[in-house]
């Protein structure tokens, strides 16, 4: 893996966005443009994944589901323990932050796909299922951790049951998740010639559109840099160490349990290492209103996302290669 493999256009556009923010450029993408691009990318990744899955053996997908649930439940608990024991972060903020790390970032996943595509590495069809599944369980665990935290703090257990049901429904009717699942179903259902009709829009121009998304994410990440001071050194460090911990479990599960190829292991690792900024923040705002949103958003958008995009993905790929003995 040479340095030139890092010069994936999508990642360079991320750097350009961040640079624009750091030099205080007035560059700004319209917010609706970002939403449009995200909708487009989610449908594209869903269709592609669904198409790939339709030709795969669905029984083989089951381990991926278990792995996804395992990450979604296990990683937030690990994150919570670290935040509480080492960082002495107050329980409710710890709960809210932890939930984000059990979930995933579709943007990081797509960047990894672009990275693998750029160096011509293939991968299994199953990680996209994990992407779709992992957003939800972490939200539930976040709520459980928050309930536990409130018990420690001696606070009232006000309607946790109702909230759990409410969040369960929200998690499954969340727009992004629904779009991803729906597109996967459509990608799997349509005939080959039908798929070819929509392929130019959803596949051929996908990688270019991803550049727009990442340029904008670079600006969002750049904006959050100024909040590093308010968030504190420990949390910023956590935003870099936690993805590495997730990546460790991702590598182990991907290689030994799922036994995927180097590309597949890289994607599983990226899923474990990444951290939500779509479905989890609004859910935590609702479920844990006592937590400071600036903490989890800064960690997710300002630390973990840039770290994964710039450093993480090539690192995880190199590690997957090492494990595979290549």
């Amino acid at each position, binding site marked *: 893996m040479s340095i030139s493999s890092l010069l994936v256009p999508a990642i360079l556009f991320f750097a350009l966005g961040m640079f624009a923010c750091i030099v205080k450029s007035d560059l700004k993408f319209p*917010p609706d443009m*970002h939403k449009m691009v995200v909708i487009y990318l989610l449908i594209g990744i869903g269709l592609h994944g669904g198409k790939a899955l339709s030709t795969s053996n669905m029984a083989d997908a089951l381990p991926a589901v278990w792995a996804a649930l395992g990450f979604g439940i296990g990683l937030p608990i690990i994150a919570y323990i670290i935040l509480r024991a080492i960082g002495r972060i107050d329980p409710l903020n710890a709960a809210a932050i932890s939930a984000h790390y059990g979930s995933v970032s579709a943007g990081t996943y797509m960047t990894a796909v672009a990275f693998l595509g750029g160096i011509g590495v293939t991968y299994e069809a199953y990680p996209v299922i994990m992407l779709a599944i992992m957003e939800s369980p972490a939200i539930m665990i976040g709520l459980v951790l928050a309930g536990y935290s409130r018990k420690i703090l001696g606070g009232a257990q006000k309607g946790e049951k109702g909230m759990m049901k409410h969040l369960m429904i929200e998690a499954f009717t969340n727009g992004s998740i629904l779009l991803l699942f729906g597109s996967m179903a459509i990608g799997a259902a349509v005939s080959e010639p039908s798929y070819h009709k929509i392929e130019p829009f959803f596949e051929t121009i996908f990688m270019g559109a991803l550049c727009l998304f990442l340029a904008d994410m670079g600006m*969002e990440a750049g*904006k959050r840099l100024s909040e590093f001071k308010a968030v504190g050194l420990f949390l910023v460090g956590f935003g870099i160490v936690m993805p590495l911990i997730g990546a460790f479990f991702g590598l182990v599960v991907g290689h030994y349990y799922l036994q995927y190829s180097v590309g597949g292991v890289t994607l599983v690792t990226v899923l474990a290492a990444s951290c939500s*900024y*779509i479905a989890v*923040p*609004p859910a935590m*705002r609702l479920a844990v*209103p006592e937590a400071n*949103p600036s903490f989890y*958003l800064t960690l*997710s*958008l300002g630390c973990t996302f840039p770290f994964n995009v710039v450093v993480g993905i090539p690192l995880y790929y190199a590690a997957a290669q090492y494990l595979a003995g290549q």
Partner: protein
Amino acid sequence: MSSDVLIPLKRIEIVIDEEALGKLLGLLRTAGVRGYTFINHAGGLGSRGERRPDDYGLEEKNAVVILACEEKQAERLIMTLRPRLKEFGGMCLISDCQWVIGPAVSY
């Protein structure tokens, strides 16, 4: 100005979560209100902290509702609204104003 040009009314200004706007407007209509104006996509600070309409990752929007009505109607409205304010989030202000009589009556 003479009273055939201006009518004294109450001006009610409500700020609530944008998602609750539909419910609030329904409530106003069932309460017999004949006119209101609303502005979406507002932001603010309140007891629940900041709400920013353009924040990436956590978009929280308020709606501002402005309403001119007769004093009696205003009193009735406030009594209807008060118990629901918590559910809607936000605040409700009242002040005096004068309605410039025009071709249409919608207060």
